[in-house]
């Protein structure tokens, strides 16, 4: 049973579908978690403490990393395969077919932008939070707005967020990242139903509408946090700089 997931085209697409679905669900959770920071920085840090270096958070991170790796590796395997199938000689004249979205033809490029953004994101946050705890180090070093060094508790996510988004170029990088994710999801979300066989002519408009709603919700949910943190970075940093863990 395991072989059709690795050696058949339809099976490989099912793996893309399931791993993609898992990642969408995670992103929705992450977005909901982030929104907390708009209402209470303390509450957000409480979640950060809960999701520290505990066994369940580490297991969750491992599963998540596995999901990203599977989705990424399969994408490359499928793309290389597709490139070969297309043949060496390409058409001299091509057109954009009616009803074919730009995103659907550029999923790999969009995916690569998403992964690059993920790398930056992990450096900005994960390496200063969960990784620090795993390394049994209490504090990570940060640089404040005046260029002076200061220490950040690994669970002080709100401060890290305010600090990261106090820089306008980070906000721009993250917005580009979210936009690439939006495009990726407008095709990916309905496509995962199609690949798993749960689609028909009646449901295409509904599934595509759902994909647009999910993609837009995720974009707005993440973007609003980045923008608000940028606008209120001074207040948030002042509020959280002396925060101590409660748990």
């Amino acid at each position, binding site marked *: *049973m395991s072989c*059709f997931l690795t*050696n*058949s*085209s*339809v*099976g*490989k*697409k*099912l793996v893309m579908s399931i791993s993609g679905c898992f990642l969408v669900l995670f992103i929705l959770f992450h977005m909901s978690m982030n929104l907390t920071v708009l209402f209470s920085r303390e509450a957000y840090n409480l979640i950060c403490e809960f999701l520290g270096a505990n066994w369940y958070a580490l297991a969750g991170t491992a599963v998540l990393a596995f999901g990203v790796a599977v989705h990424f590796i399969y994408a490359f395997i*499928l793309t290389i*395969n*597709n490139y*070969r*199938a*297309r*043949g*060496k*000689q*390409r*058409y*001299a*004249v*091509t*057109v954009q*077919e*009616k*009803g*074919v*979205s730009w995103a*659907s*033809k550029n*999923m790999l490029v969009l995916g690569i932008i998403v992964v690059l953004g993920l790398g930056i994101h992990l450096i900005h946050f994960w390496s200063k939070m969960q990784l620090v705890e795993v390394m049994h180090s209490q504090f990570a070093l940060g640089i404040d707005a005046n260029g002076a060094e200061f220490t950040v508790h690994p669970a002080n996510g709100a401060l890290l967020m305010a600090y990261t988004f106090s820089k306008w170029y980070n906000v721009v990088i993250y917005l580009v990242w979210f936009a690439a994710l939006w495009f990726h999801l407008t*095709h990916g979300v*309905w*496509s995962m*139903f*199609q*690949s*798993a*066989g*749960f*689609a*028909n*002519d009646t449901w*295409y408009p509904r599934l595509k509408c759902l994909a647009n709603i999910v993609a837009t919700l995720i974009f707005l949910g993440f973007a609003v946090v980045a923008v608000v943190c940028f606008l209120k970075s001074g207040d948030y940093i002042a509020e959280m700089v002396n925060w101590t863990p409660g748990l």
Partner: protein
Amino acid sequence: MNFTLKIWRQRDAKSQGAFETYKVTDISADTSFLEMMDILNNNLIHEGKEPVAFDHDCREGICGMCSMHINGHAHGPSQAVTTCQMYMRKFKDGSTITIEPWRSAAFPVIRDLVVDRGAYDKILQAGGFISVRTNSVPDGNAIPIPKKDADESMDAAACVGCGACAATCKNGSAMLFVAARVSSLAKLPQGRVEGARRAKAMVAKMDELGFGNCTNTGACQAQCPKSISIAHIARLNREFLAAKLQD
């Protein structure tokens, strides 16, 4: 009407091909595209030149033999018709028309605009049939079939196996063709019996012959001369995955 034609010329499968430019003049607007090609070839023969090789047979849109990629469209810019059913009035007088053979690794060029579509026959031989007695004629209405199922089956059976789907797909995927065959039989009680074996055998053969993986762009249905819906691809995915999970 007058046209400049940029046509792909290639001596055989091993030769390097190139575009050559020809002029055709005084073409009636009601000339079909293939008749225009006949006029060109007539002129070429009179000039002592080699005529352009292209596939054609019934010239009424049911045999699936014509296969040209015209101005970036499989079967030309007309919607839902084969090349033979397209008329020169569809083109602007004095325009340049670029004509290429199908481009797909699984469809090697034999000569000029003729490609080897034997790969589709091999997929059909793998399972695109039903095993029945062939002596006496069965009663037409011996097995009642719901209208909806019969309609869906007929919509899929409209596929003429021309190869436009794989030729259009950026991944060189034959999924729409395979899906149409699997779907047309799966919706009827006579074909249902061998449904699982058929889906597995045809997908396996499709993969083996070097066709790419479907990424749900929908370009195939946009260019299909018979407007076959990608809903049949969803059904193929269902049929295949259900069959594999029962193994």
